[in-house]
């Protein structure tokens, strides 16, 4: 009777241990594991979306392959972050000089409802001439953002207007379309410019 009770306790203890281990596995490595917070952008060659650039040309991820690429998201009704980012990028491009001639620099809007081709054309004209503006249908913008692992969200503001929350990082790709690194919003120029150089160099190696 006592032995049986001891066995019973032992089995229960083992069962509890097993359950704990199982729960641990489920939550850490198993199906219950949280999404890794910093999912990396896909290769440009693995993305699929159709947009229109600010000159009315049909563009997609394949437009960007064979040259190093810099991509960032924003919207032209954004009074603070977006002009600052475009202005920062213009400064980086100036610092890089003629090396940027062989680079794609793409601004993709997250607000295609207001950012028509004409709106994008006017907006990019105020910044470095290498910067191109892409817009398109909502679903295609969503597919592009998914490929870059960027997020955006429409937020209503007073008076029936709205603003957009969005990923403000700048994504860098080599000439083969592989993701190289990311420049965070407001990263100082002394960090940003070498990162771009690296993408450019990997690009040159990739091309030869």
């Amino acid at each position, binding site marked *: 009777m006592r032995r049986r009770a001891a066995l019973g306790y032992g089995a229960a203890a083992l069962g509890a241990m097993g359950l704990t281990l199982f729960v641990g596995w489920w939550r850490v490595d198993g199906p219950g594991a949280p999404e890794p*917070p*910093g999912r990396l952008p896909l290769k440009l060659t693995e993305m699929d979306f159709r947009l229109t650039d600010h000159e009315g040309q049909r563009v997609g991820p394949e437009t960007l392959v064979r040259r190093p690429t810099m991509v960032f998201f924003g919207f*032209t*009704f*954004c*009074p*603070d*972050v977006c*002009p*600052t980012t*475009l*202005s*920062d990028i*213009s*400064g980086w491009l100036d610092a890089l000089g003629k090396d940027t001639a062989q680079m794609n620099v793409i601004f993709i809007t997250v607000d295609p409802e207001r950012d028509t081709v004409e*709106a994008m054309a*006017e*907006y990019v004209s*105020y*910044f470095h001439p290498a910067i191109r503006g892409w817009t398109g249908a909502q679903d295609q913008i969503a597919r592009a953002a998914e490929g870059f692992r960027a*997020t955006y969200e429409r*937020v209503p*503001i*007073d*008076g029936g*207007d709205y*603003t957009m*929350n*969005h*990923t*403000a*990082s700048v994504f860098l790709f080599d000439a083969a379309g592989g993701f190289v690194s*990311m420049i*965070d*919003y*407001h990263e100082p120029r002394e960090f940003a410019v070498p990162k771009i150089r690296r993408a450019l160099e990997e690009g040159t190696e990739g091309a030869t």
Partner: protein
Amino acid sequence: MNKLTIPLLATLTALALTSGVALAGSKDVVVENAWARASIGGNRPGAAYMTIHNTGDEAVMLTGLATPLSMMSEIHETTTNSDGVSSMAPASKITIAPDKRVELAPGGLHVMLMGLQGPMTEGDSFPLALSFSDGGKITVVVPILGIAARGPEG
């Protein structure tokens, strides 16, 4: 001292004390390096930046902004989270501690100018009134710089 000077002195002292009180707070606020970015057309909101310096020894709170240029002006704050997502929201009331500066700069606090009455053109300027918790008001003239400007120097 004669009979006349004592009440006179008392009055003067009282005046000095009350004016001293009135002088504290927003009267000691100095707005430095104000600038704004040109807008594209008049439909998009505009942004203005400045440093608000409280040179006095009492904290002051900024309670309101007004300019004929826009229907509504508010202090907004841009924040970027650890995932690199930027968002913008009205900032809570801004208190400037004695002898401190609050900086309104790109990527952080800024004056959001909503409902522009016309485009903000580079080279123009506009008056902006700042109201404070003690009832005081300061009006600054804000120069409009280019859309790619990064600071008060352009």
